[in-house]
């Protein structure tokens, strides 16, 4: 049993990578630590459950990384994906620290493996967790427990007492035991974003948000973020924005994770409910193309679209969780998708007629393009003419949100007046917007979590001693 009457040195709210790195690093620095995870034990860890790798800088190839990835190259990649929406000082600090995280995280029990089958393009830059994100979490939890970190599950925080930027206590609500006042010298907020809070998403997206699927657990509700912002912490990141990819429309509302994704857009065309194309399917190569389609589908009527391809490309992409819907003719396929058959036939006929000859190469921006249609398909355009015709229905799958708490290099929260908080720190998705104002680069969420988690725990422990 955890003694909740005592005053802890460090209270960590959240239970993912950032929270556990903070808890472990604070405990290793000698602090007493309590972790409050709002989810039940099985669903612990927020989005970390569904991750698989981390992007860390390194100057030379390692056993699991195929080549060097310098700090400068990492910085340029970050600049590219964020379009400059990043705090350079914090970002460069994080990138520098990421080098040491490669080893530090192994000391916490996490194991690496070379990049997974189907992800060869990340073999140089990203280190993959052996067994995936949940295996990584399990290792961190085991280490935290062995170090003597107290951990509570189903531990919902319903209020924070903060005075003049100073955290005093948290109001804890548990299924058994009811409400308890938890006191601690310092707070680490590591409770993620609000992607599973449909009501909150509706503030920016309206009724369309009802048709969004959430890739992580239903527990990422952003309640801690909301409390912090309401109690004087400075916000960062565009509140209206979220990271969304196109995932199978047959996926569950929550927690479908990575396996519901589709990466077959480049092999066919994408049509909306009116059986009309609406965007260049050949614009860019993975991973950029991967990240734009969620937003694109969200802008279509009923937030649904259909990737349509033919039998010649079925083995060109990774096997999918849900099988494609098939039809011997375009009309039959349209019937199964409940699309207008004549409209779909017209779209495909026009598309096929516009396809120009070229040499197909899906690993490069090849010369297979269309001519004379709008929107064009600028690469990988091939005729869709070999039955059976196949389709995947897709919807926007929301991964994470960008709104967060402003922090400094100590991972210390900054208040609205610009002053650092006396004893509040933040790590992970809840402050990711400082570094990642827009876009995404594979594995960077975990880098933010581990680097700032480790820093937040260390600084909180130091703060508690003083």
């Amino acid at each position, binding site marked *: 049993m955890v003694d909740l009457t005592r005053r802890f040195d460090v209270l960590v709210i959240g239970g993912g990578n950032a929270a556990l790195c903070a808890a472990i690093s604070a405990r290793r620095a000698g602090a007493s630590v309590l972790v409050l995870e709002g989810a039940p034990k099985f669903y612990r860890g927020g989005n970390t*459950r569904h991750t698989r790798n981390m992007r860390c800088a390194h100057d030379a190839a390692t056993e699991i990384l195929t080549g060097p990835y310098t700090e400068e190259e990492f910085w340029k990649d970050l600049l590219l994906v964020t379009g400059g929406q990043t705090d350079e000082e914090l970002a460069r600090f994080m990138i520098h620290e990421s080098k040491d995280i490669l080893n530090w995280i192994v000391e916490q029990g996490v194991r690496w*493996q070379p990049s997974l089958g189907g992800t060869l393009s990340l073999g140089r830059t990203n280190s993959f*967790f052996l*067994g995936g*994100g949940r295996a990584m979490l*399990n290792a961190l939890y*085991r280490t935290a427990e062995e170090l003597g970190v107290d951990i509570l599950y189903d531990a919902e925080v319903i209020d924070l007492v903060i005075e003049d930027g100073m955290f005093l206590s948290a109001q804890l609500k548990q299924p058994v035991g009811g409400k308890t006042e938890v006191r601690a010298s310092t707070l680490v907020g590591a409770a993620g974003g609000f992607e599973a809070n449909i009501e909150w998403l509706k503030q920016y997206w309206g009724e369309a948000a009802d048709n969004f699927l959430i890739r992580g657990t239903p527990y990422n509700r952003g309640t801690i973020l909301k409390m912090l912002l309401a109690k004087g912490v400075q916000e960062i990141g565009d509140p209206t924005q979220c990271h969304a990819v196109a995932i199978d429309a047959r996926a569950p509302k929550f927690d479908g994770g990575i396996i519901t994704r589709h990466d077959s857009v480049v092999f066919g065309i994408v049509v909306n409910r009116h059986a009309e194309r609406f965007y260049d399917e050949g614009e860019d190569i993975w991973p950029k193309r991967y990240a734009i389609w969620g937003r694109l589908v969200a802008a279509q009527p009923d937030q649904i679209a259909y990737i349509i391809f033919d039998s010649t490309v079925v083995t060109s992409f990774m096997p999918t969780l849900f099988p494609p819907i098939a039809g011997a003719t375009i009309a039959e396929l349209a019937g199964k998708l409940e699309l207008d058959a004549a409209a779909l036939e017209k779209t495909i006929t026009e598309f096929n007629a516009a396809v120009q000859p070229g040499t197909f190469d899906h690993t490069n921006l090849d010369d297979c393009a269309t001519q004379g249609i709008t929107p064009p398909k600028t690469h990988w355009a091939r005729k869709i003419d070999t039955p059976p015709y196949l389709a995947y229905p897709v919807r926007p799958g929301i991964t994470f949100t960008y709104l967060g708490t402003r922090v400094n290099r100590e991972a210390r929260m900054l208040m609205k007046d610009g002053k650092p908080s006396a004893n509040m720190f933040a790590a992970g998705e809840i402050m990711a917007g400082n570094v990642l104002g827009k876009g995404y680069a594979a594995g960077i969420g975990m880098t933010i979590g581990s680097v700032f988690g480790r820093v937040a725990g260390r600084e909180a422990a130091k703060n508690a001693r003083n």
Partner: protein
Amino acid sequence: MHGTRILQEADRLMTVCNSCRYCEGLCAVFPAMEMRRAFSDGDLNYLANLCHACGACYTDCQFSPPHEFNVNVPKTLAVARAESYAAYAWPRAFSGAFARNGLVISLIAALSVAAFIFGFAAINDRGVLTGIHTGPGAFYKLMPHNAMALLFGAALLYAILALVMGVRAFWRDIGEPAGMTTDARSLLQAVRDAGELRYLDGGGVGCFNEDDHPTDRRKLYHHLTFYGFALCFAATCVGTLYHYLLAREAPYAWWDLPVVLGTLGGIGLVVGPIGLLSEKWKRDRVLVDAQQMGMDTAFILMLFLTSVTGLALLLWRESAAMGPLLALHLGVVFALFITMPYGKFVHGIYRFVALVRYARERQMMVHGE
């Protein structure tokens, strides 16, 4: 559609896993899965027998129950594996032995022991059965060596025949052409992988047993059991060679090779099975096929009884208990031999064959053959 409900479920899981692949570094099952996009009955039986049931993929899986995707690979493959043993049994008429295996094995063991005791009593005078015999040939006062060699040789040959027929059925089921066994590189790799239980370690940290803390205990106990069994078998072979080639008759002195091998093996075969059984009882029920408990327990107990009766015979061979102990030991060993093709023993054979095939597949993939 698949032949059985469990293969249907295994297919569903492999489809889920193949779109995820996070577990590919844990063992051989997932890399083998990745070489396929669709799964036939044979493919699934191959994967089921390739699985060493370390449990890591369950503990690591973000979709294991209570998640609605309900992914439980270790348990599903354990059921499929057990069903495959029955399907490959030769002759087919005996495949029913797998259904209530614990009972079948116990009955055969009891009958076998009883047959030896009554046999000894019927052939020999009471004085011979409970008498004290020492020196070379002491055992053969109760049962002539040639009779013993003939009976056990025949039992062993039968077991080998039945096992070979089972392997043949498995080999065909997984779609392998004849003649593939000539690939020495794959065989050698499989011997190494089986010998060190490479895939019973959760990708390096150990097995998951009663909770989410990995340990190497099952691997250790399995090594003690397997190598203990191997040493005991070696002791028997050396003894037979002594007898026929050197005309040296058992019982041998404590320092002699058959006794040293048998004693060391026997100790492994006592500690190993006890350890395996205790781990099995502690094991999280969510990872195991409850139907299989009888079969697993029966096999472990048979190995345990083999070593315990053998060691007892060694300790009391110069007393009046030698006769009954010899009958007991021979009865247990005879039952062990003839039930080998119809119990848990086959897991080692099919898993080894699956490892051979896996080694071969990997080579083909790496070298693009």
